[in-house]
């Protein structure tokens, strides 16, 4: 399913690896970018916030891409982890997917609200948050690869 890839450095600082697979991963997690961009299409928002990842995904949904993974991916709370990785379809569908839009909007409500909470993030545990975020998105890969293009 996956064949050939190349990387782009854009003016906005986004690093994109283009693949021919049926999905892409939008992330602000450098570990996801490093671990997965060799095999999959990864849109890496370097130094981006979790909210910026969601905004990027929401914009893709408006451009008729379909959301493939839950935007609130685990039970690590959004006010703790700075990292977020979300899978969306590579190719646009024929129309905007209402379910995808509903899910991302609801998730963004939670994120917006969460910024009122006390922060727990510390540099010493930054890498651990990256590892768990990577594991969460990796857990979707077997399903995504098994299904292929719909």
């Amino acid at each position, binding site marked *: 399913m996956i064949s050939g890839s190349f990387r782009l450095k854009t003016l906005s600082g986004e690093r994109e690896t283009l693949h021919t697979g049926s999905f892409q991963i939008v992330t602000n997690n450098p570990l996801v970018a490093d671990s997965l961009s060799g095999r999959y299409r990864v849109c890496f928002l370097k130094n981006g916030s979790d909210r910026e990842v969601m905004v990027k995904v929401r914009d893709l949904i408006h451009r008729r891409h379909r959301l493939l993974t*839950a935007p609130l991916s*685990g039970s*690590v709370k959004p006010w703790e982890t700075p990292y977020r990785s979300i899978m969306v379809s590579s190719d646009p569908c024929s129309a905007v997917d209402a379910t995808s839009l509903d899910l991302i909007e609801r998730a963004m409500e939670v994120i917006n*609200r969460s910024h009122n909470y006390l922060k*727990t993030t510390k540099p010493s545990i930054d890498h651990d948050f990256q590892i*768990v975020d990577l594991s*969460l998105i990796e857990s979707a890969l077997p399903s995504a690869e098994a299904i292929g293009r719909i």
Partner: protein
Amino acid sequence: MKLELGYIDIRGIRFGDHNAVEEGILVVNPEPLLKPVLEDPLIKTAHFEIAAPGESIRITPVKDVIEPRVKVEGKGGVFPGMVSKVDTVGSGKTNVLRGMAVVTAGPIVGFQEGIIDMTGVGADYTPFSQLHNLVLVMEPVEGFVQREYEKAARLAGLRTAAAIGELARNLTPDETVVYETPTIAETFSEELKNLPRVGYVMMLQSQGLLHDTYVYGVDAKRTLSTLIGATEVMDGAIVSGNCVSACDKNTTYHHQNNPVIHDLLAVHGQSINFVGVIITNENVYLDDKIRSSDWTAKMAQYLSLDAAIVSQEGFGNPDTDLIMNCTKLEKQGIRTVIITDEYAGQDGRSQSLADADALANAVVTGGNANELIILPRMDRVIGTLGYVDKIAGGHAGSLQPDGSIQAELQVITGATNEMGFNRLSAR
């Protein structure tokens, strides 16, 4: 399926030169129990500590809580597929060391969570403060890989609980309770056919590292929704690999003592006809969620249920699975009650769940995990307080100079459990 649980009441734990249960006291000789734990190359250190109800002790960070049990008669052993060979459990006789638990503690990731206070305000929020706890404190070797070490720590806890449970093999129980579940044909018998057919949908967290649950050794994310016998769950067919979100994760102890199952069995044949248990997962991939909830509703219809109780595990993404399960059941005409907990902000005024639907009109809550609490200083800490500032619900400065902790309720293991195995509720 018919399972006889023989409860042996444990009234205390002490260290000694042998391992035995003597007149309700568990005597622990650490060396032979720790030997297999320390044989794992990923575990650098391991030792036991004892915590009794009412003592000024704080246990943190807690990974799992496990009730020691042993299969005395019938097929299989406890925790099949994990520490016993794969075989269908849930029938015959099982002895239970009631009133105690094996608690695993120690670091896995830097933000790991879970506090059990044995006295004070915190103790009121966790059911595990009421148990005599044998705490297995472990440390990983340098440069460990989290995924591998989580497995090592998980298996160390289960093996230790199985070894402790073995001490009860030949004991005479203080109390014996027989649990019997009907076949589908029996649920249509004369005495049951006029009672409402009720099923239990148990959602299992299954999203990745520190978010996993295992069924007969199978990672729950790799299964479709399926049926399981209520008594299989009591024999440890489902174990926790979940270390995230202390307040609303299901520990192995929760699975072994699932209160929804116990309560439904208690009224089976009286006010309801308890038809069966459906287990379903909470995956990251959205098509998995759709497929699993479709399957849940399909099986519920196949079982001709009139009503269902759905229990959730975790927060955020599982809210989507919860609402999918609920709405699909309701649309089949199956009256559905969901058990969840809330993240409604420290003032309780925000929306409680990340997903919602008008069909989710019967909700039991385990409490608001964002509620701010102050836990007093304890005389003794088992584990380490180094993680308190970093765990879910803690925050910078949450460990005060006087040793007290200001944090959200979600730091406490089991505080807002979504099986209802807790002390909080609201109307």
